[in-house]
Structure formats: C-alpha cells, structure tokens
C-alpha cells in the first residue's frame, strides 16, 4: 500500500516530440485515479512512465516514500494489467500467476497458497491447468487481474484493460474490478478512453488532452463543473451543447443571461438539463423546432434546430414525449445550469 506522487512529470521523446507536459497528481493510499482522454493524449505514456516502461525525462515520481525515477519496473513494487492481457501463452494459468512470485524467490508452498487464494477470489480456480488460449476473453481478463494481485503490490496500473471485451462483459468486469479494488484498497491508476468507464470507476479522474491535464477532480465535480470546453465536450454522452452567447441572446429573454460574466461568449448546456415543463422562477425558456426524435426505451433524444442559426441542440428526456417531428417545442432550464466559457481560451469563466 502506498501513495503515488507525480511532480511536474514530463516526457520528451528523441527529436523533441513532446508526449506529456507538467503533470502533477497526488494519488492517496488506496485511491483509484482514472486517466481519461482521446487517443494520443499521452495517458498511456504517463501510465508507462509510472510503470517504468518509459523513461521519465522531466519531474519526479514517488511511490510511497521512494523516488522511483531511475528504478527498474520490477523494483517499483507495482503490477500492471495490459490491454491485450499479455499472458504468457506457453504457460498454464497457474504458472502465469506464479511467474512473478518465482522470480522474487518466494517459497513453493507460499506461491501455491497465494495463487490459489487469488484464483478463488477471481473464480478462475478450475482453469489453473489450462493455457491462456483455452480461455475466453473474460477469463483471460481475470487471469491478468490475478497476476497483478497475487503479488500484493503497492499499486495497480491498468492500461485500458476492458477495451478488448464485448459491451456486456465490459460492464460486468468494470463492476468487478471496482469492487475488487475497493476490497483490497490498493492504490490504482487506470487508463481508459471511455468517459463512462472513467465516471463510474474513479475516486477522482484526470482528463488529459495533448499531454496536459485539463481537469482533475471527482467524477461529479468534473461532470457538473467542466473546467474547459474540451472537458465539457469529452465527458458526458450525448455531449454538452455549445452555443455562442450572441445566438443565445437572440433565443431567450434579455435578462436571462444577465447573471453570467461578461467574458462568457460560449454557453454550454447539458442535454438532460432541459425539460418540457413550463419555466418557473430562476428558469429561462427556449424554443426550437424538433428535427428528429430518437426514442431509446427509458429515455429519448430530441434534436432541435433554431431559426437563423446553424448550431443544433440535443435534449435528453427521461421519457419519450408525445410530440411530432417538425413542431416547435419550448423547453425550460435553470439559469444556474448554464456553463459559461471563454471561446478564445476554452476556459470556464466564473
């Protein structure tokens, strides 16, 4: 068990290619931090720097009380779950789990006991004599998890471990990994490009873009107060609607936007913050023409167009309304639910 401290971490590859810039993250003991961002944002590079698979070119990395910048992966007391699982194909499941323990000189009886304990925890006990190729995707995923936790390392590192699974299994494994991590209370760093995975699994999540931290916070902080337009667009599905403030002024009554700072020239609205109820006090109303209604069972997505504006808007309702496409609908939204941004810098303004 240990904390992880990243102090101004950076990575510059040969030829001045910058992958990671000025990353400061303090991961508390037992905490699960999720790194999320689009492909190429540097999240995997950052994880591999913590693992010791990439050299650290700037800053200091501490695991527990030790500075580990120069240490080999094996000396950092971490375990990693790879995207393709990286199970040793020529070894049985038992030997896959035992390999790290054997290399560290554990006694045979101790190895046996630890492997069986981990296998029981992950319900892979009956597969111990099989080779990885005889297992299904979900079972391989469990073996990869088992290999990580059998050593009882100071930290778990996950590199998009669920991206090779089908949708149903992904949800199941997501829950299992999170439950396991909470039970073991092992410090974890988890990389994913899936914003839903990030929101559901993280104690705190880090949104990365172009090698920099866009925002660090609890899932609800990040969701309800995105710090930049990038975060606003990346976290949440359907994505947040973004309308220039000048268009908004033409759509709503003049005093509706008076509470927003003057620098706010881009207004974000979450699709689920709009409702078909009439506007009450502290709410504003807004009308648009319904172009498309997408019913999705428990909820529905309404695509709206506005007179004289190219931008469209998506509204998410928790039911499927009785409306016809082509009609004009009036929605209401609480004034404090508007997200003001500065178009030039992309930053939230308060």
């Amino acid at each position, binding site marked *: 068990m240990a904390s992880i401290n990243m102090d101004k971490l950076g990575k510059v590859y040969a030829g001045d290619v910058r992958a990671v810039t000025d990353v400061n993250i303090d991961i508390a003991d037992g905490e699960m931090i999720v790194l999320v961002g689009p492909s190429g944002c540097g999240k995997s590079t950052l994880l591999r720097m913590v693992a010791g*698979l990439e050299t650290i070119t700037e800053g200091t990395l501490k695991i527990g009380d030790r500075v580990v910048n120069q240490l080999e992966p094996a000396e950092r007391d971490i375990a*990693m779950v*790879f995207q393709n699982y990286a199970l040793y*194909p*020529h070894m049985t499941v038992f030997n896959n789990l035992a390999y*790290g323990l054997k*290399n560290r000189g554990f006694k045979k009886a101790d190895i046996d006991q630890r492997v069986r304990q981990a296998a029981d925890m992950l319900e892979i006990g009956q597969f111990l004599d099989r080779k990885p*190729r005889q297992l299904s995707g979900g079972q391989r995923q469990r073996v990869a998890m088992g290999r990580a936790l059998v050593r009882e390392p100071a930290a778990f590192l996950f590199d998009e471990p669920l991206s090779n699974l089908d949708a149903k299994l992904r949800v199941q494994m997501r829950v299992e990994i999170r439950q396991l991590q909470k039970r073991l209370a092992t410090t974890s760093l988890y990389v994913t490009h899936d914003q839903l995975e990030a929101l559901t699994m993280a104690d705190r999540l880090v949104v990365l873009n172009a090698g920099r931290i866009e925002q660090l916070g609890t899932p609800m902080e990040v969701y309800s107060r995105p710090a930049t337009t990038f975060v606003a667009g990346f976290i949440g599905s359907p994505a947040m609607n973004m309308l220039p403030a000048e268009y908004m002024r033409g759509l709503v009554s003049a005093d509706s936007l008076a509470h927003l700072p003057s620098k706010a020239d881009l207004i974000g609205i979450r699709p689920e913050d709009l409702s078909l109820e009439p506007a009450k006090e502290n709410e504003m109303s807004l009308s648009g023409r319904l172009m498309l209604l997408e019913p999705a069972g428990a909820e529905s997505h309404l695509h709206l167009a506005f007179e004289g504006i190219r931008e469209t808007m998506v509204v998410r309702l928790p039911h499927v309304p009785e409306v016809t496409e082509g009609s004009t609908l009036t929605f209401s939204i609480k004034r404090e639910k508007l997200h003001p941004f500065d178009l030039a810098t992309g930053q939230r303004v308060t």
Partner: protein
Amino acid sequence: MQTKRTTFSSKWLPYALLAPQVIITLIFFIWPSYQALVQSVYRQGDAFGIRPPTFVWFHNFQALFADDLYLNSLRTTFIFSVGTTVLSMGIALLFAVMVNRMIRSRDSYTTFLVWPYAIAPAIAGVLWWFIFNPTLGILPYMLDMVGYDWNHRRNGNDAMIMVIIASAWRQISYNFLFFLAGLQSIPQSLIEAAAIDGASRMKRFWTIVFPLLSPITFFLMVVNIVYAMFDTFGVIHATTEGGPSQATTILVYKVYRDGFVNLNFGSSAAQSVILMAIVIILTVIQFRYIERRVNY
C-alpha cells in the same frame, strides 16, 4: 476451406500448364531415384560388357554396414550435421536478438547479415580455404601466435572444424531471418509484463522469448540438418575433398566418391537409397511434429 474452381475453356490447357513442373520432376527426380533403387540391388558389370550386371538382392546394403569406412562416414556425418546446426543456429539467434534491439539500424544490419546467403557454396568454400590455408591463411597465422599449430591437411579435427565453420557461415543468414521474424512476432507487452514480474534480461529470454521461438527453432533444426547432410557437398569439395584420411567424408561426399571416382555404382546407389530414406524420415518428422510442437 473452400477454394474457387477455375474453369478452363480447353480440356488440355490445365495439363499443359502443369507439364513443365511434372516433366522436370520426372526427369530430375523420379527417374534418377528409380535408377538408384534399381542399381542398389545389382552388382555392376565390367566396363567391356563381357560380364552383365547381376542381381544381388541386398548384398550392397549388407556390405555397406559391414564396412568400417561407411560406419565411420555415418559418424562423421552425425558430428558434422550436429556441429553445423548448433553453430549456425546459435550464432544466428545471437545476431537476431542483437539486431532486434536496434530500432533505426535494424534494416541495414539485416541486409548485411543476409548477404552471405547469396554466395555460392563453392565460392564460400574457397574463401574459407584461403582463410584457413596452413601456409598463407590468416587464421593459422593468428593461431600460431597463441601457440596452436593449425593444419587441416594433417589433422582430422582441424579439418572437421573448418568444414563446420564454412558450412555454418552461409546458413547463419537463413536462420537469422527466421529468428528475427520470430522475435518480432512476440508482443512487446509480454516482455514488459515479464520485466514487471521481476525477471532479469537473461531470465526473460530463457523463460519467455526462447519458449515462444520453439516452433521456429524446431523448423530450423530440421532444415539445417537437411542442409548439413545434403547441401554441403560444394563446401567440402572445395576445401578438404573429404580428407585428411576421410575425416570429413560425409555420406553425400562418399556417394560421389564411391560412384564417380571409384566407379563402384552398386555401393554408391545403395548409399543414395539410404540417404533418400533419411530425407524422407526427416521430412515426415517435420510435417508431423511441426504443428504439434507449437506449444502455445
């Protein structure tokens, strides 16, 4: 798997297209093999046609296995094949591992290491003949400085070492290519996982990389043994001519010598038949076990 069936407009066209390969196989493989099979059970007649060839059943084979020279040649062939295979595969694996670590210079190293394969075996033999030449070669000169008197014309062991090196040299290129391809097909994440699991560089190689290469290693082993037994005639002919005192007379060289130099066609044919049987066995082993030996 279903293959697409092509329809030919003429009934004879497919036969015509197959004909060149079939004719070549018949003339250069089936017919000589048949001749060898027939000759191996005859004692040849004399050169003047006075005494016709006589049918002697398996006398030629019995004579061979009672012949110390032949048994000695079998032993020589064994040592030579194993030596050549181990040497060429060992060095090729070493090179492949080293080149695989390079990133930018990998392709140029590969090109240079593959070049020897393009050199004819007899030329390579002459090259080594010069290098090892006891009177003007550079290697005996250097060995002399450390106090070793190299002379492959007198010393059978020296001669054996020379033909093994000369034969292995060319095969290193071939093996290198296969090992390199094999190494590149091993996912990097496996090596990284092993590194995190606390395995040292050497341990990673022997517990992860080498086992994963085993299908290729097995394939190359068979190919190299076949090469050493059958394809090294040129090297031996250009360097030692089987000497000194038959120390480097491998089976193939003995077939040539007994048949074309000593003109003992019956014995030579019997030896060819034995060689043929060895090739067939090796090929069967390769085809039967290469799939099974893949251990992942």
